[in-house]
């Protein structure tokens, strides 16, 4: 097991930002973090905090303002452009739009650091390209033009391109940003498989906190004044995510990793019953602005069961029945306060 968790990347007091004229604009205080081989690492932080800049700096596209980056204990400064390209692959948020470029050609560009001066694709390269297409389930698309692909397919081909580049580290800037929910999970699943089965270390930024918490091995949480790293669960227990929402109206529930909006509570309601119906009813009641109490109080809701197919809302004097949560909530928001 120890063999497996080999440190592949470390940042030591890394200062990221831009140089404009003689002024250095450091975005964040110096960052220190590390990544082990085969880990799926999510970079979380608010918009504009410097996630993209961090990822670009790690890829070597932008110089660090200070501090060090080590890949396999070797300083990034000692790598040539070509050597680094064989170590780290990169996907940005930029959408590649080139007409007349086939998926095969796009993936073949991943072989850039491995081919000769004119970029000739040899048999060996060809097999690697086909393998990359296979791993991303894009074999059937290889003769299609990139411009004809859906967002998800294009992202898969971009991933195939880094696979063809044959790097041990993949850096992806919001790889799921413009995908629908199904697409997001497909790409995340693919990333998960690549880190498990192909031993790739994947560092990706995302705004989807729940997805990151569920799927990643480690989170680099960038807050205004520091970078906190750890397993998602460690960060949850430490309540680290709360700081993400300090100034906003969003409430992060560190018990189950869900969000809600901060609002004044309209009252408390007890829910009688268990199971998934309870889970969803509770969610709806919360959304309507009520808190769910732990002890039986009035009013209370009785969930549908074998003997009763309706949601019952029991007040002191009356019992109302509803055939759906929708109706229940409608009644709650309108009548309850008056009737009780």
């Amino acid at each position, binding site marked *: 097991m120890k063999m497996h968790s080999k440190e592949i990347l470390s940042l030591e007091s890394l200062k990221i930002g831009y140089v404009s004229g003689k002024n250095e604009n450091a975005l964040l205080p110096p960052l220190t973090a590390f990544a082990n081989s085969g880990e799926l690492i999510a970079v979380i932080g608010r918009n504009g905090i410097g996630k993209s800049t961090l990822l670009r700096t790690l890829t070597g*596209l932008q110089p660090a303002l200070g501090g060090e980056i080590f890949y396999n204990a070797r300083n990034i400064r000692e790598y040539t452009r070509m050597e680094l390209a064989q170590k780290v692959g990169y996907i940005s948020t930029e959408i*590649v739009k080139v007409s007349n*470029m*086939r998926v095969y050609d796009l993936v073949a560009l991943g072989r850039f650091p491995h081919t000769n001066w004119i970029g000739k694709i040899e048999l060996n390269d*060809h097999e690697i390209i086909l393998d990359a297409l296979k791993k991303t389930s894009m074999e059937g698309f290889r003769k299609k033009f990139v411009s004809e692909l859906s967002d998800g397919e294009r992202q898969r081909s971009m991933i195939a391109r880094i696979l063809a580049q044959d790097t041990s580290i993949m850096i992806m800037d919001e790889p799921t940003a413009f995908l629908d929910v199904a697409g997001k999970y497909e790409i995340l699943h693919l990333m998960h498989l690549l880190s498990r089965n192909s031993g790739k270390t994947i560092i990706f930024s995302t705004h989807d906190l729940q997805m990151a918490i569920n799927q990643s091995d480690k989170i680099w949480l960038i807050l205004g004044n520091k970078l906190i790293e750890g397993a998602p669960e460690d960060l949850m227990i430490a309540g680290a995510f709360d700081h993400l929402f300090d100034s906003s109206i969003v409430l992060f529930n560190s018990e189950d990793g869900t969000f809600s909006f901060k609002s004044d509570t309209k009252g408390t309601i007890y829910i009688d019953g268990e199971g998934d119906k309870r889970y969803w009813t509770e969610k709806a009641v919360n959304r309507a602005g009520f808190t769910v109490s732990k002890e039986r109080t009035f009013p209370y809701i009785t969930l549908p069961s074998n003997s009763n197919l309706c949601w019952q809302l029991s007040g002191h004097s009356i019992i109302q029945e509803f055939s759906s949560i929708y109706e229940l909530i409608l009644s709650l928001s309108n009548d309850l306060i008056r009737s009780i």
Partner: protein
Amino acid sequence: MKTETKKDLSVELIPGRNIRLIFSGLLLLVLIFFILDILFGSVSIKASEVIRAIFTSTGSNFETIVLRFRLPKAITALTVGVALSLSGLQMQTVFRNPMAGPYVLGISSGASLGVAFVILGFSSHITPDNINELGNWILVAASWAGAGAVMMLIMVISSKIKDIMTILILGIMLSSGISAIVIIMQYFSNETMLKAYVIWTMGSLGNLTASQLNVLLISVSAGVILSLFSSKMLNALLLGENYAGSIGLNVRFARIVIFICTSILAGSVTAFCGPIGFIGIAVPHIARILFKTSDHKILIPGTILIGGAVMLISDIISQLPGSENVLPVNAVTSLIGIPVVIWVILRNKKYSGPF
């Protein structure tokens, strides 16, 4: 299993039979147009006479016309077509702009400013007709410098502004600005200089001296060789600078190589033949339509052949076979190129991507 891999190879690794067929067709076309360009001219000469003039030395008038005028002119046309098209292809990729070309972006204007400095600024003894080999090299170097300077300027601007139409308008402004400078220079120059410059601006494919043709051929050959070396870099640049850098391209180095290459190609042509429009922008698109690829390993030779063929046919048309009149070749290339440009504009109205 083994045979299947082999089959895959024949599909994707080795250029398909279609592509080879197109290449053979284009080569044949260039050859035919080259011969036609020699056969047709303002003086009608029978084909048999032309052949006799090329292969035997009779000392006849026909021989003079064919060897001293038509053959060099055809060679010039071929070279000019190759150079302008290739520089257009490189610019379109490096600027990620389907409308880029030496003429529209003002690169040709920059080159003509260089020429104006030499002819109007330096010496009244330099006229296009009497300068020696060294003078020609000075002329062409000034032209490269002018082209290169405008390239740099456009590059700086386009790194700040991504909108393609804005860049085009700036290119037009740049051209106009440069013309204004040249007009001022003309105003202050003496009569001989002025005459020499005006003759140059009317430039055509037929006015080159043997020594100028030499300089042109050497420069363009250097540009073509350099462009072959740049095909891998150009392919990477298709993805944009960030991706190109992330797959191992030294973007700054690549830019410098491609800039030098483009400046040599567009500058040399402008130095000796004057500004010739719309070949550089249109031909790369014809190549893309024909080969349906974005791979510069195919697009570069394709553009070379198509560029040569289009320029030769433009020259043939400009001679108005059967009549004694000659049209300015610039007018013909515009009429051929503009429809292609319009087609490209109409095809992708949304100009956010490269092409």
